[in-house]
């Protein structure tokens, strides 16, 4: 390919084994074969492997799309119906690729030619199309669903209304209403207590609103409410409470009703008895209740429960990350000496130990902390301790590797120089080894702390404690405001940590 043109002068061009037409026919039968015969073995192999895997993938996708229809024809028509764009695109792509491969084989037999990447570009494009289908990319849904997703999303983006709340005080007074009226005396008006809210209804018995055969409402009795002892100039809501204790706000002409109290805390109001579906068993004499309620906020703003929980979990998260980092550092220091070549180049045993520890570290490191957390949850149960175990294991592996590389790259010169002054071994370590170790050590440890706090925000997703745990719960409860608070806290904490850690690292380097 490219180096063929460059190295033409240096070594004789490899001549094709076959004529262009033979190569083309060979590639038509088996893609890549012609290129191989033209002694472009690697090119041929790549073309063959690509076309083969593309064909295989297309087959698999068609089987999947046609829900395992029998017969190629049926399979094709079914697939075409379900994803016409994709099927046409990918089939055209395959055919063009096949033909291009034939043309490519034809060209490759010629000794003098420029490197031609067309086949590979097309292979890339076809793989892109396949990838699009396999990973179920669907921008249409993303756009169409956006308006529906906006309300919860906006709550996540700006959740702060739910971050603070005030204590509330409820002022309420109620009166019993009998339905229907009968010979017995209707309920008495409640006793009036000075300083307490008070309300009387008249009459104290009547009929509920009902529906006739045509589902038209037949209005019930109008009750005149007169109340006193409420907070002045405050909105007051009227509730209806049925005999089985269910309460709801009364609506009239579709709107919830409410009254403003007068300056002296009284109000007068007429209410039509609402429609209530009463179970047949409750036929007959029933005592309902009508209630006027004022909800007033008292005192200053205070953090809401989601905010308080989030803060508590955030603190837990930061410490989770911190503890995992500390344990990680403590365990990684001895491990890193085992994994440093210049420390272990003595005997056969130490070299074996070096390779062993390297291998183990690499294996542990290649398993994500989230998976370690799943294992740790099985081991010690849900909670931050499982998270600490998971992050510690991963930290030991990655810090062990980083530290050991730092040890390997230590400059032996200063060690020699300090030894030459007649210093003891301990003095040599303090004056020549430690100063060289501090910058990478601090830098890697801070970096790890940074990673660990980040990781601990998600380790809760699998039950490893920390804020992630809370976040999943809020999302499951559809409490997007609370979830938003948690998300914001994660973002703020990680941003602060980022700055702090880069600041510290700069100081030490």
């Amino acid at each position, binding site marked *: 390919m490219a180096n063929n043109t460059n190295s033409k002068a240096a070594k004789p061009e490899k001549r094709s084994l076959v004529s262009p037409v033979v190569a083309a026919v060979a590639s038509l039968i088996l893609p890549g074969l012609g290129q191989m015969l033209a002694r472009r073995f690697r090119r041929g192999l790549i073309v063959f492997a690509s076309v083969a895997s593309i064909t295989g993938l297309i087959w698999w996708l068609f089987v999947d799309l046609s829900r395992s229809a029998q017969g190629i024809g049926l399979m094709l028509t079914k697939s075409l119906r379900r994803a016409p764009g994709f099927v046409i695109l990918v089939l055209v792509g395959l055919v063009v690729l096949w033909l291009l491969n034939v043309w490519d084989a034809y060209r490759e037999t010629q000794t003098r030619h420029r490197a031609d990447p067309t086949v590979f570009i097309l292979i890339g494009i076809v793989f892109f199309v396949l990838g699009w289908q396999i990973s179920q990319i669907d921008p249409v849904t993303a756009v169409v669903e956006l308006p529906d997703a906006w309300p919860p999303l906006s709550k996540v983006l700006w959740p702060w209304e739910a971050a603070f709340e005030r204590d509330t005080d409820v002022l309420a007074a109620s009166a019993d209403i009998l339905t229907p009226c009968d010979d017995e005396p209707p309920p008495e008006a409640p006793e009036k207590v000075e300083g307490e809210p008070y309300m009387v209804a008249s009459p104290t018995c009547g009929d509920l609103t009902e529906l006739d055969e045509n589902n038209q409402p037949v209005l019930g009795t109008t009750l005149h409410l007169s109340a006193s002892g409420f907070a002045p100039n405050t909105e007051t809501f009227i509730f209806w409470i049925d005999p089985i204790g269910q309460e709801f706000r009364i609506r009239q002409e579709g709107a919830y009703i409410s009254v403003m109290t007068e300056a002296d805390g009284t109000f007068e109001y007429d209410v039509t008895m609402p429609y209530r579906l009463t179970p047949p068993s409750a036929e007959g004499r029933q005592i309902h209740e009508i209630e006027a309620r004022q909800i007033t906020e008292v005192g200053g703003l205070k953090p809401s429960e989601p905010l308080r929980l989030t803060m508590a979990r955030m603190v837990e998260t930061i410490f989770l990350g911190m503890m995992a980092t500390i344990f990680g550092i403590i365990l990684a220091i001895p491990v890193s000496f085992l994994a440093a070549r210049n420390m272990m180049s003595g005997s056969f045993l130490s070299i074996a130990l070096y390779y062993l520890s390297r291998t183990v570290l690499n294996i542990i490191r290649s398993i994500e902390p989230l998976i370690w957390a799943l294992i740790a949850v099985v081991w010690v149960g849900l909670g931050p301790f499982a998270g600490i175990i998971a992050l510690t294991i991963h930290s030991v592996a990655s810090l062990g590797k980083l530290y050991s590389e730092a040890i390997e790259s230590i400059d032996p010169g200063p060690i020699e120089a300090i030894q*030459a002054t007649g210093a003891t071994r301990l003095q040599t370590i303090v004056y020549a080894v430690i100063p*060289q170790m501090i910058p990478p050590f601090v830098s890697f440890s801070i970096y790890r702390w940074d990673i660990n706090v980040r990781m601990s925000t998600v380790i809760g997703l699998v039950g490893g404690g920390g804020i992630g745990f809370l976040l999943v719960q809020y999302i499951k409860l559809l409490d997007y405001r609370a979830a938003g608070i948690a998300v914001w806290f994660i973002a703020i904490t990680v941003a602060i940590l980022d700055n702090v850690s880069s600041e510290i690292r700069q100081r030490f380097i």
Partner: protein
Amino acid sequence: MLEIRNLTKIYDDGTVALKNVSFTVEQGEFLIIIGLSGSGKSTLLRCINRLIDPTEGQIIWDGVDITAAESAELRTVRRQIGMIFQHFNLVKRSSVMTNVLAGRLGYADPWQSLWHRFSPQDRELAIKALGRVGISDQANKRADELSGGQQQRVGIARALMQEPRMILADEPVASLDPVLAHTILGDLDQLNKEGMTILCSLHYLDLVQRYASRVIGLKDGEIVYRGSRADIRAMTDEQFKQVYGAEAIRVAAGLEGSLG
């Protein structure tokens, strides 16, 4: 007097770096060791203060067998021998002052010094040593902030802190430009005039001619040349190259080049 007797060094991998090397150095000599790269110059110098343990042979210094010295005794020997390196071997992140004070570790209280505590006398000595090499004003900088020539002077000041009777210099000017090479060797020459024994490996013929009181040439770990001051002065470039190989160059040529 330093006496090297039948010194042989075979490295673990089987490389024979020194073969049966014997010579003596009188107190106050400026002995220059020449030889091709890989001829064993560094190995020889490092054997003298036991940074490398020789395989065979003896090194006797004023009646003390350095080859037999262990732990405390070895440290006492080492602290009387200053060493200067091609790449200075300073602790780059430590201050110049700390680097210089480190030269005093062989004398300092082993525990106090771990917390970087040195006696006022030691600190005074460090200031004097820096003054002597002309960089007192750099004391509080980090070592890696200095120029190459300044760093080598810190190296010399560190060696001086040992109040040594002998200085080993392993290609002390190889990574410096010719002008600096002269000034650094001038510093060593001054010390030599005050009675210090100096063993130094060098590459440049005119530096050798100018500063050496005696020369030995190594080739494949063996001494192939011994010459007095007069012998060296009489040496032509051709003879020098025979010992040295084609790599040998005169600093003067480089000097003219660098001064334009």
